């Protein structure tokens, strides 16, 4: 299994520089704040923000291909995924409800380098009248100006790093797809 993983990892490193269509992955990490609280039922929570406006790792002309917001919820607070409604918004305040950890094309073509936000509300009664989510936002973005290819993973503090678990997942998916021209988003 380890050998398979190493092979796939190598494949990823080799394949990506040769990719012609930009298929870059950006993990914006946790929002600020990383834990977003709600106090009550059917009221909007605090807002969590991802400010990508000054991120030097992303080309200014990069646009969103797909976006993925994964979020944990507070089970001890009485929360469940069915009664939790999470919205993802762009800097203009336009957004959509999203389910956790699914790749959406909802903001396709929009500039990546903007201030994104998320808020949620719950339908059900909460233990102690409060609950929280902990979201992580990911982008698959494209930049036709540079036509670059590769996987870019950044930590929540904005520093450029390669995160092993993400690469492993990417590598597995590259292996199961048309790897020469395409990088399946991490799911």
């Amino acid at each position, binding site marked *: 299994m380890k050998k398979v993983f190493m092979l796939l990892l190598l494949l990823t490193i080799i394949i990506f520089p040769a990719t*012609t269509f930009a298929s870059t992955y950006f993990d914006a990490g946790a929002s600020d704040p990383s834990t977003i609280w709600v106090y009550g039922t059917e009221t909007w929570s605090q807002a969590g923000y991802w400010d990508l406006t000054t991120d030097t790792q992303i080309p200014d002309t990069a646009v969103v291909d797909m976006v993925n917001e994964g979020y944990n919820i507070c089970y001890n607070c009485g929360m469940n995924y069915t009664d939790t409604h999470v919205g993802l918004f762009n800097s*203009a305040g336009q957004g959509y*409800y999203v389910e956790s950890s699914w790749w959406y094309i909802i903001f396709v073509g929009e500039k990546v380098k903007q201030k994104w936000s998320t808020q949620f509300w719950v339908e059900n009664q909460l233990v102690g009248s409060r609950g929280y989510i902990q979201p992580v936002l990911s982008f698959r973005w494209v930049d036709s100006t540079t036509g670059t290819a590769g996987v870019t993973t950044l930590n929540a503090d904005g520093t450029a790093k390669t995160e092993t678990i993400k690469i492993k997942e990417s590598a597995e998916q590259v292996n199961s797809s048309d790897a020469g021209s395409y990088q399946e988003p991490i799911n």
Partner: protein
Amino acid sequence: MNIQGPGNHDSMTKVFQKKNISNEPVKTSFFNGKKDEVTLSARYTILEMATEPVVNQSTNSITIEPDKAYSLGEVNGKPLRFRLFQDGGFETNFSLRLSHDPETSVGKPVTAYEANAAKIFDSYSAEEHRQENRLMGRLMHLLQVADGKISVEQFNEYKSAHVASTQELLVAMGIDINRTFAINGVDFSLENGHLKRQ
């Protein structure tokens, strides 16, 4: 997952289509669980808009304009409709767009519109949402090609399990892929699954 062309009966159009649409703001009781009414600030949701056919069968062409609602066939027997906004965004009858100010909405009650949008979103299964996402994703890419934002080569190289194939989308919309077709005035053909500009 069944995908059918737009020639089928669009039952939701009958349910939500409003007559005598004017430019005046509309008040409507969106959500039975809420007693209040919501003013849409002169903005109609796709649920209230009359659907126009996306394909002109006689010319085998697609013309998509902002702020008009179009049918994109069916997903699992349920009509899929969409509209583009002037700002480049879009919404479907599976997923309404929200307008929201995170700075001022903290702790504020969810509006009837927002509650209803969640109710609508939840009324479709995860698989139905994924199929909606797949079709809309390819459609948006197709429009980007027609607008010159991405090249035909880039379009053809793009493959993802999260996005429908070109053929799947065109068939769902009702395009005859055995002959030349036009998208927003640009002529294309489909050869061995690849888009080709004429």
